[in-house]
């Protein structure tokens, strides 16, 4: 095993593969991807449903097809990658400690590192549901892996807590495989999933979606026998008079995704409190020189197409960094009003057109997205509907950034 590499990419999912391809195409030749799974592709391998790639490839692909296209690009370029390889540690000098069966424990010094580890699901321990802890409680993604990759059905009568897209997709998938999905409960008054998934995964199969509802108790000793479901008030507290028992043998949790940043923290990279991902500039470079971050480890994306796009940007940035071209010219902070929950990037260091991704805190109708410099409104864009489940973008113009050097641009949602 060699001990140095120009660019080391942690994670061989959609972000890692796209970053590798972009860096290669920008001239970097000494690249290594480390992937803990047995294959490249990441979570796309178990997302056998369609709906991926409309932006990136102009056609609707399934997860394995989308992953396969990027894996083919990696292989065409003969970019080295190691599967079944777990990264154990990353330090601020970009020394990576990893292990696999073939090489045991090994270290590699990288001139640049791209973090592309993705995210994981919020587990039951983080939800604080009362009752027993019998078998039959799964995150939706775990159930997806069982059904689509292992050929096991987790259960026959299912209640789903949370209406994220993976939960909705699994409601349809388990129904098609013969299970009965009795209810999807969502704590919030709106679903975090895409409208098309509510339609084709729930409505198509007459699966009820209970908004402003939660699971208040899990029943069963060895195996789940049912759950108590109740409506919640505006403060998200259960209303006990509405509680009712739903018999089921399985509870799926689709309650949000958390960027997986243990390695990032070990390297001393500061994280954003809202996204749970690194604080980055427009190049996706973190506060630690030569360490970049992209994809769902940086902030949870709605579509994989945007993961690929962002990762390509990180790959290009790493290539520039390796050529010694990264110049810091300006300092512009991006501030949010709370209705805009966060922005990626969090700050801008170069005066050029910069696309900013953000998410909103609530559903807003007939609203305007505003970007201001002090009292001056630089951009005011009308939006019929803004929802927390969807990522929004705004492109900052070079001249605004020139003007804002040393100051902050503020992002706000304005409603009538």
């Amino acid at each position, binding site marked *: 095993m060699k001990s140095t590499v120009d660019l080391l990419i942690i994670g061989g999912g959609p972000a890692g593969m796209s970053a590798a391809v972009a860096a290669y195409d920008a001239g970097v030749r000494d690249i290594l991807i480390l992937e803990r799974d047995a294959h490249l592709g990441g979570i796309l391998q178990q997302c056998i449903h369609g709906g991926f790639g409309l932006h990136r490839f102009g056609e609707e692909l399934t997860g394995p097809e989308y992953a396969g296209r990027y894996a083919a690009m990696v292989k065409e370029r003969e970019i080295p990658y190691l599967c079944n390889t777990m990264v154990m540690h990353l330090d601020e000098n970009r020394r990576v400690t990893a292990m696999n069966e073939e090489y045991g424990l090994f270290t590699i010094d990288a001139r640049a590192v791209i973090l592309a580890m993705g995210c994981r699901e919020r587990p039951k321990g983080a939800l604080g549901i009362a009752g027993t802890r019998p078998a039959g409680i799964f995150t939706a993604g775990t159930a997806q892996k069982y059904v689509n990759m292992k*050929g096991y059905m987790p259960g026959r009568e299912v209640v789903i807590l949370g209406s994220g897209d993976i939960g909705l997709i699994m409601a349809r998938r388990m129904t098609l495989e013969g299970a009965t999905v009795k209810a999807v409960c969502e704590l919030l008054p709106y679903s975090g999933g895409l409208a*098309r998934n509510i339609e084709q995964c729930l409505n198509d199969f007459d699966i009820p979606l209970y908004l402003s509802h939660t699971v208040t108790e899990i029943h069963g000793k060895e195996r789940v026998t049912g759950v108590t479901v109740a409506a919640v008030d505006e403060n998200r507290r259960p209303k006990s008079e509405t509680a009712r028992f739903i018999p089921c043998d399985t509870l799926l949790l689709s309650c949000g995704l958390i960027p997986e940043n243990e390695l990032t923290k070990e390297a001393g990279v500061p994280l954003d409190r809202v996204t749970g991902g690194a604080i980055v500039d427009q190049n996706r470079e973190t506060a630690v020189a030569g360490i970049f971050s992209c994809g769902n480890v940086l902030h949870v994306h709605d579509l994989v197409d945007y993961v690929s796009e962002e990762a390509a940007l990180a790959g290009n940035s790493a290539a520039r960094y390796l050529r010694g071209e990264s110049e810091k010219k300006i300092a512009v902070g991006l501030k949010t009003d709370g209705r805009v929950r966060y922005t990626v990037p969090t700050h801008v260091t170069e005066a050029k057109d910069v696309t900013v991704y953000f998410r909103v805190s609530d559903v807003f109708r007939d609203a305007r997205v505003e970007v201001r410099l002090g009292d001056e409104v630089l951009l005011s864009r009308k939006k019929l509907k803004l929802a927390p489940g969807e990522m929004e973008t705004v492109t900052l113009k070079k001249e605004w950034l020139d003007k804002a050097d040393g100051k902050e641009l503020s992002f706000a949602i304005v409603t009538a």
Partner: protein
Amino acid sequence: MTRNLTCIVCPRGCEMTVLLDENKKFLSAEGNACPRGLSYAESECTAPVRSLASTVLTESGKLLPVKSASPIPKGKLFDAMREIRVALAPDTLCVGDVVLADLAGTGVALVATANAADL
């Protein structure tokens, strides 16, 4: 009469209002951001179709992801699943190769979405 629809063609999920005549025949639609929404609305009000994705067991006992090559009638989804459940795929199949030529009598093929050798 009118009918409200959520377009499922792309992740945008346009909310549409469809105008139907007294025989529930499609007349027009609004709220769609693109022409694909219009054809979705007409199809949805005439003969709704859905894409189907699932897995098929391979000869070596792995799960091969598959999809319908094009959308099939919504009412045929469970018939198609019954055929998919008992199908067996050779280990030589590649992305796009046909697993079942005529899914549940729809005339639509079931195709592989991964290379069986890479599983």
